């Protein structure tokens, strides 16, 4: 395979569409996880409610569940006759077998990363620091923005990048819910497998190399961002 063939293989519209889906859906999933993961961690550390331990344990479920099982379960739930899918269908929202389904699967598998990195930091936050801010007249929002968020930002960034990295490489759970329609809901790892099954080892490797390079660049960027955030915080640590 020469350079021209390589370039041709990795830039066919079908492959490019798969990059967009893989990285786009992973990014959206990680962003959603950053929000919901933070919220989950917050509720788990700040509030007492019955069944809290159970919920705390359930957070780890995506870690333990075989991805294929997760994929099949999500497909069953979100298909038009599933529990959730049947509720969304009347509004014209289809999740299973669409790119949206890919986002749902990637969100599901990434949630624990954010919760488990942010939770200990939130637990370590001294109540007194917030009380000090309040006694100085800061509103709850000001306290969150100026005091709490700088403290948890590095952890949140770590959780986000872990969830993002995991989502880029995810295969098992996505292929069941995605429907795998070329150009629409086909992820890059699936394309690699397809090529391997057709004994096109060179083509599979070419796409894999592109994945590798993009992933590396993205994670390097995130790591630099983390380093910068830590550096800023180190003055205080």
């Amino acid at each position, binding site marked *: 395979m020469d350079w021209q063939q390589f370039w041709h293989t990795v830039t066919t519209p079908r492959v490019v569409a798969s990059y967009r889906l893989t990285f786009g859906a992973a990014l959206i999933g990680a962003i959603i996880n950053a929000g919901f993961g933070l919220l989950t961690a917050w509720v788990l550390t700040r509030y007492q409610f019955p069944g809290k331990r159970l919920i705390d344990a359930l957070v780890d479920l995506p870690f333990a569940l075989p991805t294929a099982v997760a994929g099949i379960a999500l497909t069953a739930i979100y298909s038009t006759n599933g529990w959730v899918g049947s509720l969304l269908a009347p509004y014209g929202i289809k999740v299973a077998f669409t790119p949206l389904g890919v986002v749902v699967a990637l969100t599901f598998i990434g949630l624990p990363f954010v919760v488990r990195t942010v939770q200990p930091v939130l637990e370590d936050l*001294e109540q007194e*620091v917030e009380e000090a801010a309040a*006694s*100085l*007249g800061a*509103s709850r929002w000001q306290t969150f923005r100026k*005091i709490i968020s700088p403290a948890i930002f590095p952890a949140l960034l770590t959780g986000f990048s872990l969830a993002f990295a995991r989502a880029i490489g995810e295969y098992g759970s996505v292929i069941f819910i995605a429907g795998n329609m070329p150009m629409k809901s086909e992820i890059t790892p699936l394309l690699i497998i397809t090529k391997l099954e057709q004994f096109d080892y060179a083509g599979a490797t070419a796409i894999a190399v592109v994945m590798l390079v993009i992933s590396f660049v993205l994670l390097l960027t995130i790591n630099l961002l983390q380093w910068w955030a830590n550096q*800023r915080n180190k003055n*205080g640590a």
Partner: protein
Amino acid sequence: MSISIQQVRKNFGNFSALNDVSLDIPSGELVALLGPSGCGKTTLLRIIAGLETPDSGSIHFHGKDTTHEDVRERQVGFVFQHYALFRHMTVFENVAFGLRVRPKQTRPSDAEIRSRVQELLQLVQLDWLADRYPPQLSGGQRQRIALARALAVEPRVLLLDEPFGALDAKVRKELRRWLRRLHDELHVTSVFVTHDQEEALEVADRIVVMNKGNIEQIGTPEDVYQHPANAFVYQFLGNVNHYQVQVSQGKAQIGHQLFSAEKGAQDGLATAFIRPHDIEISKPTRGNVRGKQDAAFKATVSHVLPVGPLVRVELKVSDNDRILEAELSQEKYQALAIKQDDEVLITPKRVRIFAEPS
């Protein structure tokens, strides 16, 4: 700003932290809430601040009911035992925080904030640390910054929760003198919590002694030390020996000496309290164990601790094997030349026998 606390009660589950506590703090005073841990002093301070709400009762600032006002509205300066500084902000930004979070209409301009913060940092004598971060400071410096931060909002009341509790002994001594001087300069009504009687006696205008959710005594340091209202206060304000005595007709015999109990003391067993420095030790001279030193009784020296300005001597009373602790000056100790296992004569000079059952 005077503070009036009326009938405040607070329970945590089954634990009763404050039982209908009432207290008036006149404007401009520096008051210490003193008591053992778990006596409710911190809870009371937090209720004054608005960080806790009482189950019943009310708090008035200068006559105005503030019981249901949030800590944000009360304009109190609160200093925490562990400083609670904002670690990711410089010292300057820490002190400026209270001014920067004000709503736009009342927020001072940047230049005003700058000069106000500088002024406060000079007041706490740490203006050269403005650009440092809290973790780079020593404990004493952190606590002074925390105080400057609390003062930045021009609080009507300054509340300090064990402000020197986390510091080592030497820094603690320096800082409490410094706090006293600062208070003399600013005259802001201040309440501080401590479990250290020495600290309270040295710093406060008035001391509120608390125990198990109740106020035992309120008075000037001299008052509570010289005229303790009850056995608890007496014991809490300094070392004390407990000595079981038999009271009959308001008198109790210790050795060969009769001491009168407080008015209202019941006949029967009671505890006499003797301060270690109120025990006089003398050497028995030959033949006069029961002679002119009639009041004295025999004891054996069981232990001597000759370090520090005072020598502590542990004595075993010969008649009943009870242990008493005595303190004497180095001079006296040299003159007596006592050592372990010596037989000595001891005379309690002052004894308190409280009326309450102990």
